[in-house]
């Protein structure tokens, strides 16, 4: 069974007998970054030592990513770096900017995992081929050559927590038996292309790529965005295991729970300066008290829509396939009703078909069966919809950068919806766009920029503005708060509540259960493409009946309980415990097949 587990596990070679000594792996002293007259980073000090995780936290725009990229000797165009960055004793940045040693450090000593891994995977190449290539690139495998590198790549995938069978089917029936990752399944998994994985799974493939390089330090930029609670708990567990194996980890995150669970030390950045550094508990604000039902006492924004509410959008018996000829089923007989002014949340582990459901409703996924009804009329796929129907159902998704034209300002593109779908004159459309944007915390100045100049969170809100300008009857939101900090999320929630007050129906796909509880009156739990539970949001979240819902709820709090990662065998996606021991055991020299000598000396 151990095909995918392999004998060689990435990592596990950090602590003992390191030629770099017990000292810091990454040493940043007085790092500054300037763009024109603006100072992005100002005298940042930072250390990452082997076998520990350090967190870099701070509000959006505080310079976290700039600092992380500086560790690779990389800076955005027009940004000048100065100060000192040393990784494993190699100077990466000195006072003249990136040093020559930087190229040698990338991947081999330090691997960076970017925020939006969907874009980090080459669409034209099988994941296994890239993993093997990265493994061979950074370590000589001697005569074993290719097969040894492949085993190493398989190990990286395993360490990253990617189980076989992410495709969607089978989680209902046979998912639990996933204990035996057969060699054939592992190979099939490595022969897949990135588009054959769900968003959360791609995150793990990206992590596997970083691991396949066999680095000493992992720099992870918001690794928990877009992960469901179970996957997030597993990520925390995996990170802790990697740290125990001797990796140095630098964690960039808005997710304070994850930081508390993983990193004992935290550096707080604020506008490019280190505002605080020390033990995580001292640096971060105390965790918000999490009662069993945090939002139950709070009245829902509009009066909860009862059963008598008029249905705005009904999906009946929706079955969807990924490929032609009804192959690769991802949804099985899913029915959802979104009443006027109501909000239905769709929740489930990654790969459960949430996005496919949203895309079916938006008319983008054509390989489906079943009925869609918008206000009593049948709703065809997008290209057969009338302008009225297109206006009626608007879809906002997670990674929106690709949907913006780089050559026109965001405002121009966003306002176009109102011109095209509602026939408003352009100036009025622009005025309305500005008004909505302002409520979402976007300034008019930001709106008149080009997409490339806006951050992911700003664009995500601009995409929401674009959809709202259509004045839709039904708004489909697919994880639209993943790139937002708490303030921006609150503005979005307020806007959703306002919409519902005006009768707009909302379908909300999200992983943040607290947010779901706050927003939705009905919740639908999806697992492996089937509805496993549906009902009143409070009831379901307070006393879930399905195993999936219980699991998602149990994993929602990370904090102190991390070691008690939910019994993984119950999780449809979890690595079964039988396959974990190689990494969980305390690291020792004999345990780690990748010895120091295997590594090219700097």
């Amino acid at each position, binding site marked *: 069974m151990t095909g995918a587990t392999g004998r060689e596990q990435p990592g596990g070679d950090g602590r003992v007998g390191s030629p770099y000594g017990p000292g810091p792996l990454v040493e940043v002293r007085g790092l500054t970054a300037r763009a024109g007259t603006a100072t992005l980073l100002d005298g940042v000090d930072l250390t990452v030592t082997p076998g520990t995780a350090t967190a870099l936290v701070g509000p959006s725009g505080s310079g976290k990513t700039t600092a992380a990229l500086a560790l690779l000797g990389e800076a955005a165009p027009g940004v000048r770096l100065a100060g000192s960055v040393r990784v494993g004793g190699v100077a990466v940045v000195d006072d003249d900017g990136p040093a020559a040693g930087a190229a040698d450090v990338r991947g081999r000593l330090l691997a960076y995992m970017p925020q939006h891994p969907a*874009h980090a995977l080459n669409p*034209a190449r099988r994941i296994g081929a890239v993993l093997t*290539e990265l493994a061979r690139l950074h370590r000589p495998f001697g005569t074993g050559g290719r097969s040894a590198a492949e085993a190493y790549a398989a190990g990286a995938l395993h360490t990253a927590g990617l189980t076989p069978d992410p495709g969607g089917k089978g989680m209902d029936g046979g998912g639990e038996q996933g204990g035996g990752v057969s060699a054939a399944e592992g190979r099939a998994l490595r022969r897949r292309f990135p588009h054959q994985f769900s968003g959360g799974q791609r995150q793990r493939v990206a992590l596997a790529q970083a691991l396949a390089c066999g680095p000493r330090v992992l720099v992870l930029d918001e690794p928990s965005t877009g992960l469901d609670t179970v996957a997030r708990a597993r990520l925390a567990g995996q990170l802790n295991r990697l740290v125990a194996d001797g990796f140095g980890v630098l964690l960039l995150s808005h997710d304070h729970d994850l930081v508390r669970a993983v990193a004992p030390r935290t550096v707080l950045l604020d506008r490019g300066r280190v505002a605080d550094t020390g033990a995580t508990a001292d640096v971060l604000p105390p965790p918000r008290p999490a009662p069993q039902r945090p939002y139950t006492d709070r009245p829902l924004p509009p009066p909860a829509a009862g059963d008598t509410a008029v249905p705005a959008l009904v999906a009946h018996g929706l079955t969807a396939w*990924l490929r*032609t000829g009804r192959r690769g089923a991802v949804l099985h007989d899913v029915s959802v009703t979104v009443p006027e002014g109501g909000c239905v949340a769709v929740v489930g582990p990654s790969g459960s078909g949430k996005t496919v459901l949203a895309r079916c409703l938006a008319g983008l996924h054509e390989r489906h069966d079943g009925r869609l009804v918008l206000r009593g009329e049948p709703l065809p796929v997008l290209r057969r919809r009338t302008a009225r129907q297109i206006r009626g159902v608007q879809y906002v998704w997670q990674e929106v950068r690709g949907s913006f034209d780089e050559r026109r300002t965001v405002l121009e593109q966003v306002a176009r919806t109102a011109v095209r779908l509602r026939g408003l004159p352009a100036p009025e459309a622009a005025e309305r766009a500005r008004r909505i944007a302002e409520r979402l915390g976007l300034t008019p100045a930001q709106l008149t920029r080009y997409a490339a100049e806006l951050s992911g969170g700003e664009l995500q809100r601009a995409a929401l503005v674009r959809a709202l300008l259509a004045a839709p009857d039904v708004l489909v939101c697919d994880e639209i708060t993943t790139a937002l900090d708490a303030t921006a999320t609150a503005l979005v929630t307020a806007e959703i509540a306002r919409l519902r007050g005006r009768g707009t129906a909302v379908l909300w796909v999200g992983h943040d259960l607290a947010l779901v509880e706050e927003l939705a009156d009905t919740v639908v739990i999806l697992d492996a493409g089937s509805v496993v539970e549906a009902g009143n949001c409070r009831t379901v979240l307070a006393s879930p009946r399905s195993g999936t819902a219980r699991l998602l709820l149990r994993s929602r709090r990370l904090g102190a309980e991390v070691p008690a990662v939910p019994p993984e065998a119950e999780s449809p996606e979890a690595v079964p415990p039988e396959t974990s021991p190689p990494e969980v055991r305390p690291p020792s020299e004999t345990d780690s097949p990748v010895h120091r000598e295997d590594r090219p000396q700097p």
Partner: protein
Amino acid sequence: MLRYTLRRCAWTVVQLAVLAVVVFALTNLLPGDAATVDFNEQAGLEQVAELRAQMGLDRPWGERLLDWAYGVAHGDLGTSLVGGGPVSGVLAASIGVTATLAAVTLLLLVPLATAVGLLTGLRAGGRTDRAVSAVTLTLTSVPDFVLALLLVAFFSLRLGWLPSTWVGVDGAWWERPELFVLPVAVLLARTVCTLSRQVRAGTIAALHSGWAVQARRLGVPRGRLVLRHVLPNAAVPGVQELARTGDQLLGGVLVVEAVFAIPGTATALVEAVQNRDVPTVQGLALALAAVACLLNLGADLVTRRLAPRTEVLR
């Protein structure tokens, strides 16, 4: 992938069947037929009608189509009305030269266009890119026959290095590679330009993608990044363009064949049309169309592998 391949192949067969009917119908729309051409102006109408009956041209066209299609399905393209020999003989006589010309051109074209496309794409906006782009754009806008005549004037007439025409070459053209230099140069001039522009555009897009940036951050060296990561994605538009170029070349680039008097397929086709030699026109057109279909089939299969995510669109 296998299912896609099978489906795509099945469609190609359907395409070819439809194409055969279209070719047959169109050639029947040509004014006049071989019977009218065969006689001089003194021939009476009865004589023409007699010959027509003799050639079987008076039968209803549906019947003739079935007859012809049956023959084609069995590898018999019919009999030339002019020479009296089999059409496949005409095809065989002309396709050799054209295929060699096309093969030599493609052999040089692919690496050259890829190299030029990558070079300009990797240095987009730089001095090299602007210089090379200026040359390629200029070359594209020069008509083939102008370029051909310029080359002939310079290399054949002034310097006398290369033969200017295939006139007088009979049979053993494959023993004289110098005959190919100028025609291939003219064919390359334009095709390299269009293809390298596609590769250039693809390279620029691929280089700026998140995964290329990530591969660089994971320490993939530049050369490897370009060849293993960027090129497969950058090649997608290029492969389609290549298929188009390929079928153009095999169809024989008429201008080039005319200027250099190359006895290729385009020349044979034009001759057949002039002679109202309907079976030859049909046979040649069908054979060339089939090659075009196959080239596009190949390009689609390659594209499918290079852009596998297209399977989930819609």
